C-alpha cells in the first residue's frame, strides 16, 4: 500500500485497526473462559467413569425444563462460533494489512524484543484451527474412536482415544497443547495491552506473568488427560 499523501477526515474509532485488535482480544478472552470450563469438565476423568459421564449428561440437561435439552450447550456453542468468526476474520484482516505494509522484505532481519510465542501467533493459530476441526470430529460431531470401539460412552471414548496402541493420536493432542500454550502465553498479555490495561512497566510485567500462568495452567491441565491414559493412570 502506498501512502495517501492527504489528510483523511471523518475517521471513526470503530473503523480502525485498533478496533479490530480489540475484537481479537475480547474474542480471545471468551475462548480462555471456555477453555477453563472445558478443562474443569475434562479433569472429571480423574473422578472415574460414572462421574465423568454424569457431568457430560448434565451439560445437556442443565437449565431444564426452562431450556430445551442441550439448550445451554447450544447457547454456548453459538457464542463460541461467533467468537471464532470474529477472531479469525480480524486475524486475517490484520495479517493482510501487515503484509501490505511491508511488501519488500529485509535481506537481514533480527528479532531483538519479541518472544518465540509472539512470532508464532499466526501459524500457531492456524494449527489450532486445524486441530479444533479434528477435535470436534473426534469427540463431538463424528465421534471417531481410533481403536474402533464404542462411541456412545464419553469416558470410554476418551480412554480409547489416548490408548497407547494409537499413541500418535496422543502426540497430535500434546502438540496441539504446546501450540495452545504458546498462543495463550502471548495472547493473554497482548489482549491486556490491546484493551489498554498495561500503562506502566509494573502492569506490563504482571500481564506477561499472567500469560505464562494461564498458558501453563491450561495447556498443562489438559495435557494431564492424554498423559494419564498413556501411562495407565486412567483406565476403563
Amino acid at each position, binding site marked *: 500500500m502506498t501512502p495517501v499523501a492527504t489528510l483523511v477526515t471523518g475517521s471513526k474509532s470503530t473503523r480502525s485497526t485498533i478496533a479490530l485488535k480489540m475484537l481479537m482480544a475480547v474474542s480471545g478472552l471468551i475462548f480462555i473462559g471456555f477453555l477453563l470450563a472445558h478443562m474443569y469438565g475434562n479433569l472429571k476423568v480423574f473422578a472415574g467413569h460414572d462421574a465423568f459421564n454424569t457431568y457430560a449428561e448434565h451439560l445437556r440437561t442443565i437449565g431444564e425444563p426452562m431450556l430445551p435439552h442441550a439448550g445451554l450447550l447450544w447457547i454456548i456453542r453459538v457464542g463460541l462460533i461467533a467468537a471464532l468468526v470474529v477472531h479469525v476474520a480480524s486475524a486475517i484482516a490484520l495479517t493482510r*494489512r501487515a503484509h501490505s505494509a511491508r511488501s519488500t522484505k529485509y535481506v537481514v532481519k533480527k528479532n531483538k*524484543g519479541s518472544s518465540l510465542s509472539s512470532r508464532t501467533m499466526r501459524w500457531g493459530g492456524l494449527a489450532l484451527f486445524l486441530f479444533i476441526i479434528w477435535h470436534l470430529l473426534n469427540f463431538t460431531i463424528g465421534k471417531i474412536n481410533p481403536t474402533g470401539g464404542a462411541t456412545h460412552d464419553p469416558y470410554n471414548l476418551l480412554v480409547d482415544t489416548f490408548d497407547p496402541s494409537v499413541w500418535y493420536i496422543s502426540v497430535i493432542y500434546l502438540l496441539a497443547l504446546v501450540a495452545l500454550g504458546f498462543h495463550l502465553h502471548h495472547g493473554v498479555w497482548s489482549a491486556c495491552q*490491546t484493551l489498554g490495561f498495561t500503562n506502566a512497566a509494573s502492569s506490563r510485567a504482571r500481564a506477561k506473568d499472567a500469560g505464562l500462568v494461564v498458558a501453563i495452567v491450561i495447556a498443562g491441565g489438559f495435557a494431564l488427560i492424554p498423559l494419564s491414559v498413556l501411562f495407565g493412570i486412567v483406565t476403563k
Partner: protein
Amino acid sequence: MNLTLNIWRQANATAAGAMHRYELAGVSEDMSFLEMLDVLNEQLNANGEEPVAFDSDCREGICGMCGLMINGQAHGPEVTTTCQLHMRSFKDGDEITVEPWRADPFPVVKDLVVDRSAFDRMIQNGGFISANTGSAPDAHAAPVEKKLADLAFDVATCIGCGACVAACPNGSASLFLGAKITHLGSLPQGQPERDTRVVSMVGQHDAEGFGGCTNIGECAAACPKEIPLDVISRLNKDLRTAMAKGY
C-alpha cells in the same frame, strides 16, 4: 579495520533496487557509522561511481533524520541512532548489511533514503494542541503533576526516526503514535482535543497503510529513545475511551 559492506542501491523511487557489495579499508573505530559511509562515498566518488545516498542532519542523535537497517537491526546493534553508532561496535573483517527502512508507507526515495512524510501527516492530523498565539503564558499557570510531567517529557523524546516501524514485522507505527498520544494526553493542554486527536491520528495511521500492532515488542527494543510499550497501551486506552464517547 577492513569491512565488507552490502548496501541497498536504488537509483530512484520507481527503479528496481539491488544489494551491492563494497570493500572498505582503513576504517577507524572512532568513526561514526555515517562517517564510515562518508569514507565509502569518497572512495566511490574517486572511482567515478554514484555515492550512496543516506539521510542525516544533526549527527547528534536528536533530530531523527538518520536511520538505517544495519545487520537486521534498526540503527544497528546499539540502543542509539545511526549517527551515534560508532565503528567500535564492529570488528575488523565484519560483513555489514545496510538497508533502508522497509515499510510501504515509507517509500524509498533513493538508495537508503526513505520518505517519512506519513509521520508528518499523522502529526498534522491531530498531533498538536490548538492554542491562541500571543505572549507565552506563565509557566505555573497550568499546574502539572510531577509524575505526569515526567511521563510527558519521557515520551516527548520521540524523534520520529521511524525505527519502530522499521523493526516491526507488521510495519506498524503504533509506538510513534503511542508516544505522541501519551505526550499530549498527559498534559492539561492536551485534554480538550484528546478524543478527537486519537481518532484522527489513528485514522491517518491506518490510511497511510501502516500495519496493526501485535504487541511483540520489536519497536521498543529498537527505539533509540527507549520509549516503552506502555505508550501503545495508553494509545489503545485513549481510543477505547473515545469509542465509548461515540467518536
